[in-house]
């Protein structure tokens, strides 16, 4: 079964035209892959569709702006995959 990270990495590669082999679980979407907030909307759209969830981007952004969270918590891809798994689990609960 394809892991959440692999699915997300494929989405990012296809959406942002980034070579798939440069995307690792440790990659930071913004700092390492150079994805800006507008491009991330396309990624969020694809993730929402693929996983049947709604990534809470506004909440995450607010938490980062308020200093309650770091961008690493949401935008390092292994962490992003973990957040997606949580959202999928919450939806199925």
């Amino acid at each position, binding site marked *: 079964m394809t892991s959440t990270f692999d699915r997300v990495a494929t989405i990012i590669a296809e959406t942002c035209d980034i070579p798939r082999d440069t995307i690792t679980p440790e990659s930071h979407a913004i700092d390492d892959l150079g994805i800006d907030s*507008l491009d991330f*909307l*396309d990624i*969020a*759209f694809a993730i*929402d*569709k693929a996983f049947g969830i*709604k*990534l*809470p*981007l*506004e*909440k995450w*952004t607010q938490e980062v702006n308020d200093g309650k969270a770091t961008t690493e918590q949401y935008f390092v891809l292994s962490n992003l995959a973990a957040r997606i798994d949580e959202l999928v689990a919450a939806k199925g609960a």
Partner: protein
Amino acid sequence: MNLEYFHLIDRIVELRRDERAITVEARVPQTSTIFEGHFPGYPLMPGVLLIETMAQTSGWLQIALMDFQRMPFLAAVKEAKMRSFVTPGETLTVDAAVIHEGSGYTMTEAKIKTGGKLACNATLTFRHVPFPQPELRAHMQRVAAEIGFPEQMIHG
């Protein structure tokens, strides 16, 4: 339409909240300074204004769906196609529908028809935020009333 003021939508024809869709009407003016340059002796509605017309149509739909609490701003235009010339005096029928509601953003598909034929279409992305100023919200409510928004949707 009042091109110089970017007031592009004349009338709400139908707002279907359950379908997350809207139909509006807009008449391209016979005269405008814009047509003096675009193009001399051959006036055409600029493609960017047709895109803006689809964006404003999508915007009114979103404002309605968000109960006049948030303001959408155009963020991305994809797959915009200008399929035929639009000329002064033509009446446009503009349809827009939400295809995805994300967190803080919305995507729509919109199209413009003239004389029953598809003139242009696009997929649009908007970011939306709470109205940054009460004056802007009040202005949007005033314009909404002018273009025939159902009263109960404007004031809840």
